[in-house]
């Protein structure tokens, strides 16, 4: 009597045997392809043009918006973790930064007309955050672009309870979800203002701090005085209203990314309800967890992004978002702006909740470990996925003399500095 394994082996060999002899003919191929593609053509003619908006209904119920929200959480990781850092005027300028309980501000990540903008209303330890200027250039269908532009997304971050409430609405569809930001999310996520607070408090307490007076200039019709504050990894420029001494604009660059905080208003009377963590009327609460912030139960540990995560995110970027090409530039702001495009494409693929949605920002989180202050470079512009000869990204791990280089075929190797792209 044969055992099961042997019988299975025999049947597999039989299948392979039969498969090697099962070949379609050219005539059959032509017949089937013509029949299928003609049927498809006829089908398309009879379909209404209403299919695309459905994609967004799928996306609305998916992790797309939560992904974007998570990206917002993650972006704040960049600020506040890297920096290790007067005159009475400077002290006056930084006083509200350090002590104001309510602040309204806009901040812009990146440069140029399509830079990503966020708008924060800060009340105590909570922030109400909205985003604008998401990159929709890759979404070619004007109806979808128009639909997306009508989608509102608001995040309310509660740093005391380490939770985030996301509110997404598109027409009559309104979805709310809570996201746990304990761990990496909480450690890294702070308002951008907290980052500035961190910088100025270190400067304030450091008698050798390098503070330069930049003189006066007009900003948005206001006479402003400026200070340049030199930190260990970050140089900060603060402009304050000359009359009130209240900061109105803060600029800094981390790594290759510039961040501008503008339209700042301190001590604004604000309704506490703006940062309520209650689900507003009309919203449907949808359970959502994101493992980019935390390893799921039962472990409940902070998630540590790895080099493999970055490689996988690059693959998703090239393979799904850009149809086989690597992006022209890479960085947190680029990652964030591509989140909606990725969501759209995955929703189109019928995979609104696929693993790619959560994988994509993991690469961004790893990138942030060296993006701001570390030695790294990117040369993926014009490189196609699979190009084994071209280095697209390299970075120097802490304590290493060599670089880790990621090639166009996504293999990773140790490379000496002189062998990196110029």
């Amino acid at each position, binding site marked *: *009597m*044969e055992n*099961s394994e*042997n*019988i*299975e*082996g*025999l*049947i*597999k*060999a*039989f*299948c*392979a*045997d*039969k*498969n*090697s*002899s*099962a*070949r*379609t003919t050219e005539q*059959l*191929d032509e*017949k*089937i*392809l013509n*029949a*299928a*593609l003609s*049927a*498809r053509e006829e*089908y398309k003619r009879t379909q209404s043009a209403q*299919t695309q908006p459905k994609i967004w209904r799928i996306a609305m119920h998916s992790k797309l918006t939560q992904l974007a929200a998570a990206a917002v959480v993650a972006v704040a990781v960049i600020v506040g973790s890297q920096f290790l850092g007067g005159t009475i005027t400077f002290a006056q300028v930084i006083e509200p930064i350090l002590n104001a309980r309510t602040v309204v501000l806009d901040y812009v990540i990146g440069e140029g007309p399509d830079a990503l903008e966020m708008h924060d209303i800060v009340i105590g330890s909570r922030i109400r955050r909205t985003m604008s200027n998401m990159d929709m250039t890759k979404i070619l269908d004007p109806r979808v672009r128009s639909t997306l532009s009508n989608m509102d997304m608001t995040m309310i971050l509660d740093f005391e309870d380490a939770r985030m409430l996301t509110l997404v609405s598109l027409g009559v569809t309104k979805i709310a979800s809570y996201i746990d930001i304990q761990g990496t999310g909480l450690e890294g996520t702070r308002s951008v203002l907290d980052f500035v607070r961190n910088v100025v408090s270190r400067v304030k307490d450091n008698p050798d701090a390098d503070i330069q007076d930049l003189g006066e200039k007009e900003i948005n019709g206001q006479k402003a005085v400026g200070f340049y504050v030199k930190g260990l990894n970050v140089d900060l420029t603060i402009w304050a209203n000359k009359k009130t001494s209240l900061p109105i604009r803060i600029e800094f660059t981390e790594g290759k990314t510039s961040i501008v905080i503008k339209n700042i208003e301190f001590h604004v009377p604000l309704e506490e309800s703006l940062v309520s963590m209650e689900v507003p009327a009309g919203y449907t609460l949808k359970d959502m967890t994101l493992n980019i912030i935390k390893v799921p139960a039962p472990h409940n540990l902070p998630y540590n992004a790895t080099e493999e995560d970055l490689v996988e995110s690059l693959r998703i970027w090239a*393979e*799904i978002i850009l*149809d086989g090409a690597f992006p022209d530039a890479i960085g947190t702001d680029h990652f964030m702006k591509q989140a909606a495009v990725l969501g759209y*494409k995955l929703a*189109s*693929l*019928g*995979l609104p909740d696929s693993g790619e949605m959560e994988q994509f920002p993991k690469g961004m989180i790893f990138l942030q470990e060296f993006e701001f202050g570390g030695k790294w470079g990117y040369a993926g512009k014009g490189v196609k996925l699979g190009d084994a000869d071209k280095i697209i990204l390299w970075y120097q791990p802490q304590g290493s003399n060599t670089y880790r280089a990621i090639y166009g075929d996504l293999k990773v190797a140790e490379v000496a500095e002189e062998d990196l792209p110029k």
Partner: protein
Amino acid sequence: MLEDKMLLWKFRHGSDDAFRHIYDKYKNDLLGLAIALSHDRTAAEDALQDVFVSFALHADKLHLKTSLKSYLSTCIANKVRDIIRKKSIQTVELDQAGQISTEDDQPDTLVMSAELSAQVEHAMAQLPYDQREVIFLHLHSGMKFREIAESQNVLLNTVLSRYRYGLEQLRSQLSGKVESWKTQRISKD
């Protein structure tokens, strides 16, 4: 798997080339599966055409829970089942089954002898269709039992039972053939 999803996405967005790519990638595997299940090349070709026409029509609404290959393999199995039901194709006799090959057959490419292949084919042809289907979907198309259960809308235990009973029947019919096959392989190597 991701490549398939991209191809599917491109096809949905108007790329006929993407459809051709999918067809070229799986046509022979699927034809092989259809032949194995139906023992009828003409029926197998009909099944292949019906499956790809249906796939072209419904690609927009398709939500893949498994791989595209698994999905198409399941479609083939379902289509062959329909064809068998409609045409009342029953199991074929050994001499007829042995003729299911094409002019491309090259003896030196075969893993097993024509005689052993015919004996296995005959044994497979004696199995109830449900059991044959599970065995081929698992061993030919590489589908997991859970995928088969979901695609056939039956319980996992039902699929496992069909597989186990099918193998037991094959084992009793092919007693001694495995050793013969192994010997062939060794001498061939």
